[in-house]
C-alpha cells in the first residue's frame, strides 16, 4: 500500500540519519521495523507520517507519489503514528485529546461531545481498552496514556498505523493484551508498522521484519524464517562482550534505606516503604518500568524531596553526594555554559579565594584534569557543553560527580540515549569504580543494563522493592513477573 524510495535524511545539525532507504509496506500486514538506537527507524517513520521532510527521496501511496507537508497531510491518506513520547496534552481530558483536530461538530462552532463520546466508546469496545474519558491525561498511569494515544490515532480512521516502541512503557502482562489488540486491528484491515528494538517482540507479533542499521536497510526477512540469532546479527555488528567483574566481597553498608515513604507531586504516596542497602564494592541495581516511584525515591535519598516515614542513612566519607541524574541536559549540565564551568557545578564553592571570588586557575586545572582522565572529546574547556556529543556530555557529568570523592555514587539511567561505544564506556567505568570499592546505586529501566553490571538487584514496582536477589539469580520470566507486578517475593 505504501512505498518509500531512496529516502535520505540529514538533520539541520548535520546528523545523517538515513542514507538511502527503500521500504515497501504491504496492505494488511504487520511490519516490524527493527534496529538499535540511532538506526533511523523513528526518523523514517516520522517522514512517512509527515512530521519530517526527507532530504531526498520519494513516497508513494497506492502507486501515487505524495508530498507530505505536515502530519495532517499524512492523516488525510490514513497514515497515523503513535510516538514513543506521548503526544497528548497533559492538561486536557482523554476525550479532548482524542478529538483534538478532528472534532465532530454540532454546527459550525460547537463540538458535538456526545457524538464524540459515542464514537470513542465504540472504538474502546473494538479494542477492549478501558480508559476514563473524562480524566485529565496528566493524572493517568503510563499504560492508560498509551491506550489514549492509540485511541486518538484510531479515531482518525487510520489505514496505516505506525507504532514507535509502544511497549516500552507497558508491563509484560499489559504487553500481552496489547498484542491481542494489534492482532484484532490487523484482522480489521489496518496495516501496522511496529518499530522496536526488542527482538522477541518483533518475532512474536510481526509478519515481516525490516532491519535498519545506521540509516540503511540491513535486511528484509519473513518472520517465519527469522531467528533471534539471525536478527541480532543483522542489528548489531559489533560483538558485545559481557562485562567480567572481578570478585569483591562487599562489606560495609554505605547507603541504608529503611521503610521509606515518599509522596509524589500530587501528594499521594509513590514510594511505599522501600528498604534496601548498598555496600561498598557493589553495584546495587534498582530495576523497574518507569513511573514506579524511582524518581521520588532517588530525590528523597539525595535530599531534594522530603520523606514522611522511614530513614535514609549515608555513611560516606564526604558530605557531597555523587549523583548522575537521569537527564543530563536538563538536570546534569547547564548546556550554554562552557565545559570548565560545568565541571564545578555543585562543588563551585570549593574553587574560591576567600569563599567569594572564583579561582579561575584552579577551575581550569580541574576541568583539564577531568577532560584528560575521562577522555572527554571537546575542542577545549571553553566550549559550551551543548556542542558536546551525548556520550561526552555524560562523561562530563560522571567525571564531575566522581571528583566529589564520595564513597557513594547514585546513577539513574546512565546510558539512555547513548551510542554503543559510550554505553560500553560508561558501564565499564561503573564496574571499575565498584571494583575499587565504591558503593554504587544504579537505578535503571534497562533490563540488559541491570543484569549486565549489577551485583545485586532489586525490582521496584508500585513504590515497593518487590524482589531482591543476586543479579545472576534472576531469570527473564521472574523479572518480567516482578516488573509487571504479577509477583511479590
Amino acid at each position, binding site marked *: 500500500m505504501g512505498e518509500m524510495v531512496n529516502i535520505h535524511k540529514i538533520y539541520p545539525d548535520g546528523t545523517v540519519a538515513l542514507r538511502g532507504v527503500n521500504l515497501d509496506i504491504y496492505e494488511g500486514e504487520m511490519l516490524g521495523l527493527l534496529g538499535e538506537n540511532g538506526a533511523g527507524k523513528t526518523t523514517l517513520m516520522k517522514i512517512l507520517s509527515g*512530521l519530517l521532510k526527507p532530504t531526498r527521496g520519494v513516497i508513494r501511496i497506492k502507486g501515487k507519489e505524495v508530498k507530505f507537508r505536515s502530519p*495532517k497531510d499524512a492523516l488525510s491518506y490514513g497514515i497515523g503514528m503513535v510516538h514513543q513520547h506521548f503526544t497528548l*496534552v*497533559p492538561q486536557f481530558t482523554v476525550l479532548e485529546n482524542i478529538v483534538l*483536530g478532528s472534532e465532530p461538530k454540532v454546527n459550525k462552532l*460547537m*463540538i458535538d461531545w456526545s457524538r464524540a463520546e459515542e464514537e470513542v466508546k465504540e472504538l474502546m469496545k473494538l479494542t477492549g481498552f478501558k480508559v476514563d474519558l473524562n480524566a485529565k491525561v496528566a493524572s493517568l498511569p503510563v499504560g492508560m496514556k498509551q491506550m489514549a494515544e492509540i485511541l486518538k490515532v484510531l479515531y482518525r480512521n487510520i489505514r496505516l498505523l505506525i507504532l514507535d516502541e509502544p511497549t516500552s512503557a507497558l508491563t509484560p502482562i499489559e504487553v500481552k493484551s496489547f498484542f491481542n489488540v494489534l492482532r484484532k486491528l490487523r484482522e480489521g484491515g489496518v496495516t501496522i508498522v511496529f518499530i522496536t528494538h526488542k527482538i522477541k517482540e518483533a518475532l512474536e507479533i510481526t509478519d515481516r521484519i525490516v532491519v535498519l542499521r545506521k540509516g540503511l536497510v540491513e535486511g528484509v526477512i519473513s518472520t517465519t524464517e527469522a531467528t533471534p540469532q539471525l536478527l541480532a546479527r543483522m542489528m548489531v555488528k559489533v560483538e558485545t562482550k559481557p562485562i567480567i567483574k572481578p570478585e569483591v566481597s562487599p562489606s560495609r553498608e554505605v547507603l541504608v534505606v529503611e521503610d521509606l515513604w515518599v509522596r509524589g507531586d500530587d501528594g499521594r504516596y509513590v514510594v511505599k516503604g522501600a528498604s534496601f542497602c548498598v555496600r561498598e564494592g557493589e553495584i546495587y541495581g534498582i530495576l523497574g518500568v518507569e513511573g514506579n516511584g524511582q524518581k521520588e525515591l532517588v530525590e528523597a535519598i539525595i535530599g531534594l524531596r522530603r520523606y514522611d516515614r522511614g530513614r535514609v542513612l549515608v555513611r560516606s566519607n564526604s558530605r557531597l553526594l555523587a549523583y548522575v541524574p537521569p537527564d543530563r541536559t536538563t538536570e546534569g549540565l547547564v548546556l550554554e555554559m562552557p565545559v570548565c564551568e560545568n565541571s564545578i557545578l555543585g562543588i563551585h564553592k570549593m574553587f574560591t579565594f576567600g569563599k567569594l571570588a572564583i579561582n579561575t586557575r584552579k577551575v581550569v586545572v580541574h576541568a583539564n584534569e577531568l577532560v584528560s582522565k575521562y577522555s572527554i572529546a571537546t575542542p577545549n574547556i571553553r566550549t559550551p557543553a551543548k556542542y558536546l556529543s551525548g556520550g561526552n556530555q555524560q562523561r562530563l557529568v560522571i567525571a564531575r560527580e566522581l571528583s566529589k570523592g564520595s564513597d557513594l555514587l547514585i546513577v539513574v539511567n546512565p546510558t539512555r540515549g547513548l551510542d554503543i561505544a559510550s554505553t560500553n564506556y560508561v558501564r565499564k567505568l561503573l564496574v571499575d569504580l565498584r571494583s575499587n570499592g565504591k558503593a554504587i546505586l544504579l537505578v535503571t529501566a534497562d533490563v540488559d543494563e541491570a543484569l549486565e553490571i549489577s551485583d545485586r538487584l532489586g525490582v521496584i514496582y508500585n513504590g515497593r522493592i518487590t524482589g531482591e536477589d543476586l543479579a545472576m539469580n534472576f531469570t527473564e520470566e521472574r523479572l518480567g513477573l516482578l516488573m509487571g507486578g504479577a509477583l511479590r517475593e
Partner: protein
Amino acid sequence: MNKMNLSPVIALLDSALRLGTPIALTAIGELIAEKSGVVNIGIEGIMVIGAFASVVATYATGDPIIGVLVGVAIGALLGFLHGTLSTYLYADQIIVGMGIIFFGYGITAVGNAIIWGQPGFSVGVSTISHLVVRVGEASVSISPIFFLTIVLAILTYFVLKYTWVGLRLRSVGEDPEVADVLGINVFRLRLYATVVGGALTGLAGAYLGVDWGGRFVSYMSAGRGFIALAAIIVGGWEPLITLLASYLFGFFDALQLTLAQLYGKQVPPQLFQMIPYIATVVVFALFFRKARPPAAIARPYRRE
C-alpha cells in the same frame, strides 16, 4: 452625565464600572492571546496608541464611532505585528512587548505634538453616547462599551470552553508540538489570537480616548495594561473571574478618585493616587494562587 444627585456609593460604583472597563477589555483580549501561548506585555502600548488613534479619528471625522473602529483596527494591526514576530520569527515576546510600550508612549506624544502643538494632551473631542438608566431618583449613564465588555467576556468563556476553535486554541498554548502533529496550524492560530487580543486592547484604548475622557492625554494608559496582566493571573486564566478581577481593580481606581474628591482639601492628592497601585499589589499578592498558566506560554514554537 448627571452626577449631582447621586449618592456617593452609587457614584463610586458608577465610576468603578467606568474605570474597570478598559482593564477588563484588555485583560480579556490578552487572556485569549495567552491561552494560545503568546504573552504580549505590549498591551500597555497598544492601549495608549488605541486611545490616541481614536481621538485623532474622531477629531478628523467628528464621529466617535469611527474613532472606536479606528482604535480597534490599530490595535489589531499592532497585535498582528507582535503575533507575527513572536510566532513566525521566534521573537522574544517580552522584549517585543517592551518595544511596543516604548513605541506607544513615544509615538502618541510625538503625534499629539504634531497635531495639537504640544505633547501633553489633545483638544476635547465628542464622545460616544451613553445609555441613561434611572436609579431611584437619580440617573446613571452607562457606556455601550461596558455592555460589550460583558458580552465579550461571556463569549470568550463560551468559545474557549465549548467550541473547536477554543479547544484548538488551548491546545497550542498547552502543547504546540502535539497540536502541530494533529495538523493544527500553531503559528496561524497564535497569530489570530494575538490579533484578537490587540483588537480588544485597541478597543480599550478607544474607550479611554472617546468615551471616558473625550481627549487624549500622554501616558493615559498609566499602567492599566499591566493591571490587566495582574487581573488575568488573579483570575487564573478564567475569562469570567478575570472580568471580576478587572472590575475590582477598577474599583480601587474609582475609590481613589472618590476619596480625592471628598478629602482632597485635607490630604495631598499624590497619596490618593498611590491607592489603586498599592491595592493592586496587595490583591495580586494575596490572590496570587499558584494558578497554572498555559504550559507553553511565552515560548516560541519551532518545527524540527
